[in-house]
């Protein structure tokens, strides 16, 4: 069974500094969802205004893609699919003095 990511573990070790952090996604994702629901009327208005004024093409590809994702069920499904596929991703790069470790659990 697929589940959303629960935690992101990030460790950045330098020669003198250590920066370990655990990001509790299981707490942040519901908050992000709530924020999205609250902001969705504003996003909808912004999309309509941009389309009517013909300024949609002037947006950067990143913003344009984000708005596109938000206004299509198919795209929301695809974005959620990516999110739900993330548990298990692990990147570990290290040498004697430094280490960068990212793990999505």
């Amino acid at each position, binding site marked *: 069974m*697929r589940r959303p990511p629960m935690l992101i573990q990030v460790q950045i070790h330098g020669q003198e500094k250590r920066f370990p952090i655990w990001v509790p996604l299981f707490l942040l994702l519901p908050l992000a969802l709530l924020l999205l629901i609250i902001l969705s009327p504003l996003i909808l208005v912004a999309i309509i205004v941009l389309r009517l004024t013909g300024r949609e*093409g002037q947006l950067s*590809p990143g913003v*344009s*893609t984000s708005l*596109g*994702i938000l206004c*299509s069920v*198919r*795209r929301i499904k*695809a*974005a959620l*699919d*990516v999110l*739900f*596929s*993330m*548990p*298990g*991703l*692990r*990147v*570990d*790069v*290290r*040498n*004697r003095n430094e280490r960068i470790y990212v793990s999505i659990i």
Partner: protein
Amino acid sequence: MAENQKKILEMLANKKISVDEAYRLLSALKAEGGAPASSAEAGTTGKPGPKYLRVSIQPGSGHEHDDDVDRVNVRVPLSLIRSGMKLTSLLPPEARDKVTGALHEKGIDFDMRNLKPEDLDEVIEALNDLEVDIASNKDVVKVFVEQ
């Protein structure tokens, strides 16, 4: 075993067809069956499919001090590759053109518009047999899939 495969083997046993012809017919049958046949096969053997693509770069034997070199270990879930590739089909055309142009500039002649989900499943299935192992004095690079 499928009925058609049995018939081909019977024809071979009765010397109605040659070994080459039987091989060609079986290959054609397998190609016709495609992914569903192979997944059914996987189901009967009970062998779970690969879950992760692993890339590992470790220091080779040529390094005097192992600590001086970088070590890389990356594990990417195959489902993430699959859904990420599907996401590319949802990119706006202008963003897709930019990506295609950037790839072309780097000498990679690849158009994302040609990527279809059915091709993708075939590629992921083919990863089952993938194992790249490059060993030199400097580095040992391994790319493989794991359960």
